[in-house]
């Protein structure tokens, strides 16, 4: 497995919506490289014929319920924690480019 250079850290930070300064990029690139080196221990194992486990409940299949209406949060309750709201909606900065 590869290690992680500064450009990769910058790319992953962009995907994660995190802004990092130069000293953070340097520190994370060093730390992530050592974590990835440690993790690469997994390559010692042959897993060619091993199925993946995505959760621990072996018997669980899709869980369905009846599609029926039940009480839910009111608009007011759902918006109570919003940093900005307007007319029953969450308010955010401009999304689409324009004037």
């Amino acid at each position, binding site marked *: 497995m590869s290690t992680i250079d500064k450009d990769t850290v910058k790319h992953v930070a962009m995907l994660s*919506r995190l802004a990092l300064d130069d000293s953070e990029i340097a520190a994370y690139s060093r730390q992530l490289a050592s974590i990835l080196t*440690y993790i690469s221990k997994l390559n010692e194992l042959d897993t060619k014929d091993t199925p993946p486990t995505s959760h621990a409940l072996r018997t669980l299949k899709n869980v369905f319920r009846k599609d029926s209406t039940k009480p839910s949060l009111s608009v007011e309750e759902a918006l109570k*924690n919003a940093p900005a709201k307007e007319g029953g909606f969450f308010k955010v900065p401009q999304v689409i480019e324009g004037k």
Partner: protein
Amino acid sequence: MENLHSLTAHELKELMASSPVEPSKILGDVLKRVDALDGKIRAFALVNRDGARKACASAKGGGRLSGIPVLMKDNICVAGEETTCASRILKGFKPPYDATVTRKLKEDGAVLIGKANMDEFAFGSSCETSCYGATRNPWDLDRIPGGSSGGSAAAVAADETIVALGSDTGGSIRQPAALCGVVGMKPTYGRVSRYGLIAFASSLDQIGPITKDVKDASLLLGVIAGHDEMDSTSVDLPVPDYTKSLTKDIKGVRVGVPKEYFVKGIDREVEDSVKKAIGVLKDLGAEVIDISLPHTGYAVSTYYIIGPAEASSNLARFDGVQYGLRDSTAKDIIGMYTRTRSEGFGDEAKRRILLGTYCLSAGYYDAYYLKALKVRTKIREDFDNAFKSCDCIVTPTSPTPAFRIGEKTDDPIAMYLSDVYTIPANLAGLPAMSIPCGFSSGGLPVGLQIMAKPFDEEMIFRVAYAFEQSTDFHKKRPRL
């Protein structure tokens, strides 16, 4: 009546049944203890005096924990009460609903007294990554209480609450319980509803009790366990009366001891305490069997792919739109997301988001994430094989007693390795408990971990109770 705070829940229940002790008296005594001690221990993120007093006034006698003060970890939603995961990004967030465990405790008549400090978003093994500052270990205030449920464990150890809830993704209930000398249990994955637990790694997280003794853990788990249609991974199995497992009889129980847990890296005094504890189980009539869990050495690597991968996805929701912090200086929405997240998350949260995003990103998914899921299968199969020849498995909970504040903050891998013995139970979905089993020469608590087959919490309670009742470790309290 003096020192009500030093009693257990079952002792207080007996007291309330036989003499006129009001829940408000118990609460008053516990809050006095919090006022006297929490300035130095810092186990609380929030003390909810008014809410607790109101709960006392309406507490009816019938419930298993009615009138008993309970401290909730700060990642469990309590309606209208600030719930922050000890993160700046959730500052001020007051959930509009109760977690299922919160609802069950309220319906039972328990008195919720506030929120426990924790590692930010449960990312840590020391309680040092909290935005509120580090919690201290009541046995030595220069040391960490363990993490991430460090506030819950420290508060129970210091008698600042009667019982507490924690959450456990890779050891976050058991490791702090061990380091603070109390009982901590991670139930089987699916035993307790995760609805209203702010998610870290959804395939690993479980809520569980942190208590002063095994009987209290059996009472608290009985109240919070069970199927919940709000969590599709909660399992529809009947909840047994766990107090019926407290028989003290473990004759003929087959106790497996895995050789891979006693290798380089374990503290000599921890090893000695655990081996003596195994001797106690043998004296009580258990059959001790040497077993092997050959993939133990791969568990930390597996966990530090799966955990951060799931966390990076779960933490995508913290973007300044619906709740918590928002940076209002950005002109466009991507800038708003980015600045909010960069300001709101601490260093370890960012490290795990970056690591998880990397492991899930195009080109690396198969090499890291898929590989880890396959090794997870091998770790699970180790336990399947082991449980063919034993009924439970005992190991140390943590390789060392509590370390010093600041000792491991600059070395993520050293910090991650403090969960080396607890992570496998999360990957395999097994129930596991830590109970006090000794002290280091410096007077620091040591924990014994007991693991069992999925949904066999009863076996753990049986073995843990038999051990506890024939030893005195759980009765020792820190001098504060």
